[in-house]
């Protein structure tokens, strides 16, 4: 049984908390959030304890795992605190805000002998796993040119923390780090990064980036990140190889659509597309982590994977800023 504390009671904190609460071999014992009220509310739901201060939590509660779901720029401090207390760590993506922090995090956790698990959840999305498996099986021959796209409206976190680009890293770090990780999983090491984007444009609640990655195996990938799409979320992938092409769009993978007529005052009806799966990718991801802790196995995503994804994101931001391609050693 793994005893877990979740740090941050926002969107991701609630998602992770719910997953642990349902897991037979995990016990959600504490929630920590700088907004004590938010921590309390979530803790009450699962009969856990609420804290506003991680150090109190670490000294008061018997724990195996600290799961960090706070805004990105605060990850490093919580990683340090948890590692110092010799707790295993799960950390939402991006692992940290900067490459330097990520390197420090990897080193600290190694020294402390604790696991650092970056929550690169895309690897547990069945459609992305299926595409990975198809590519690796040679279904399209040798992969050559890839396009991924991840679009949504601008995310509105607590106190609009995403809007402070310095803290969130904007779309080129925060959002498409999912794709960087998935692409690394499929195609290996990135050699060169070129990006254009609105990171430094100071257009309120708008960000957009077009990133070109060149991999060491020759693959060229075009990665789009869009936080300017009024109609909401869509993700697409296309991989062209020497013997075929695979393509995926979230908008075309919708086995259920419910349409309701307008009611009362409402002008338009509501359309809700659904792509239900029996176990959510977040559950699968955390279940994998907890099982690894229980059995002592190595997780499928390493701390270094989390670090490398941040490195690509930071290179993209640097390329946006300098207008130059960035070589990754």
């Amino acid at each position: 049984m793994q005893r877990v504390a979740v740090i941050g009671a926002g969107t991701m904190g609630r998602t992770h908390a719910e997953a642990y609460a349902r897991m037979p071999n995990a016990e959600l014992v504490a929630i920590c959030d700088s907004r004590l009220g938010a921590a309390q509310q979530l803790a009450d739901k699962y009969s856990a304890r609420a804290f506003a201060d991680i150090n109190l939590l670490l000294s008061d509660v018997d724990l195996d795992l600290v799961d960090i779901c706070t805004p990105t720029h605060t990850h490093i401090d919580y990683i340090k605190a948890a590692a110092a207390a010799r707790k295993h760590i799960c950390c939402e993506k991006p692992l940290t805000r900067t490459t330097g922090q990520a390197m420090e995090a990897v080193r600290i956790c190694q020294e402390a002998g604790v696991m650092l698990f970056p929550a690169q959840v895309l690897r547990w999305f069945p459609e992305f796993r299926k595409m990975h498996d198809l590519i690796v099986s040679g279904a399209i021959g040798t992969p050559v040119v890839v396009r991924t796209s991840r679009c949504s409206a601008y995310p509105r976190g607590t106190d609009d923390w995403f809007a402070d680009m310095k803290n969130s890293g904007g779309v080129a770090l925060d959002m498409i780090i999912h794709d960087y990780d998935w692409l690394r999983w499929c195609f290996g090491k990135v050699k060169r990064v070129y990006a254009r984007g609105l990171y430094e444009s100071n257009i309120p609640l708008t960000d957009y980036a077009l990133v070109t990655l060149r991999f060491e195996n020759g693959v060229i990938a075009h990665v789009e990140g869009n936080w300017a799409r009024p109609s909401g979320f869509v993700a697409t992938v296309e991989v062209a190889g020497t013997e075929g092409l695979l393509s995926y769009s979230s908008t075309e993978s919708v086995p259920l659509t419910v349409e309701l007529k307008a009611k009362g005052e409402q002008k338009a009806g509501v359309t809700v597309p659904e792509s239900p799966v029996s176990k959510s990718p977040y559950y699968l991801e955390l279940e994998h982590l907890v099982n690894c802790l229980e059995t002592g196995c190595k997780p499928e995503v390493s701390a270094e994977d989390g670090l490398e994804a941040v490195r690509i994101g930071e290179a993209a931001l640097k390329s946006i800023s300098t207008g130059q391609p960035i070589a990754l050693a």
Partner: protein
Amino acid sequence: MAGANVVRIGIMSFAHMHAHGYASCLQKLPNVEFVGIADDDRSRAEQMANHYGVRAFDSYEQMLASDIDAVIVTSENANHRRHVAMAAQSEKHVLCEKPLATTKKDAEAIVEVVRRSKIKFMMAFPCRFHPAFKRLRETVDSGDLGKILAMKGTNQGQCPGGWFTDTKLAGGGAVIDHTVHLADLMRVLTKAEPARVYAEIDNHIFRGDFDDTGIITVEFTNKVFATIDSSWSRPKTYPFWGNVNLEVIGTEGVARMEMFAQKIDLYSDKTGRHTYEYWGDDVNLALIDSFARSIAQDSPVEITGEDGLRALEVALAAYESSKLHEPIDLLN
């Protein structure tokens, strides 16, 4: 329906398969007369002339000496310069297949030859005439999307083979073949010129001595940035030859154009294939109609040789950038 306003047109070379599309438009349009065909390959000229029921000329010279008004140049890219110069010499108007040429020098020479002549010269960028693009242009011009911030385009296709993969005749592979369409559409939408180009280009699909893959980033003089995917990345089993897609990101909204989305899905046991059967407007009709009108009415052409040159410069800079792994500045 012969008359003073009917423009008499011949086709110079059937090397480019677009000649077929143009030929069938010449047969359909009321304001043009399809006179005949000349080709370096005399037997091809005869075969095509038979097929379309028009005259096969013995040579380009013979066709240019006839009483035609204009020619459509659909030869290999590297031959455009020579054929345009011949037509200009004979004072025949020209509709020229894209890309304008294979080198900047040739492209500039074409622009210069045209400038010094009295002929009308129009670049064949038919995508400009698609109703979806016209609506997109209106939407952008109306200000509904706010200020344009970025664009994302793809012109991916199947590898056409033939001389398209002979870099001496084509000037390159996929990148020179496909980049120019979107570079042109983007210039029209942003009303700005390409200023900086970066590209990753390679040949890993076919491993030939021609490029088959290219992701090109373009920055315009007004800071709008864009990417163009001009890869021959549609496999042989793909249901259609390819696509022309363009997305515009504005401060007030986004717009997506999928030019060939007007299609029927056909699953055929006869061919063992799934195909898209396009039913939207034939953009070549509007292209040739526009060309014929500017001749008949002596009005300016809608797409100039300079437009062709600007678009070509993007493709050429892309090759240079990909070699140097550096962005290339165009405005110097």
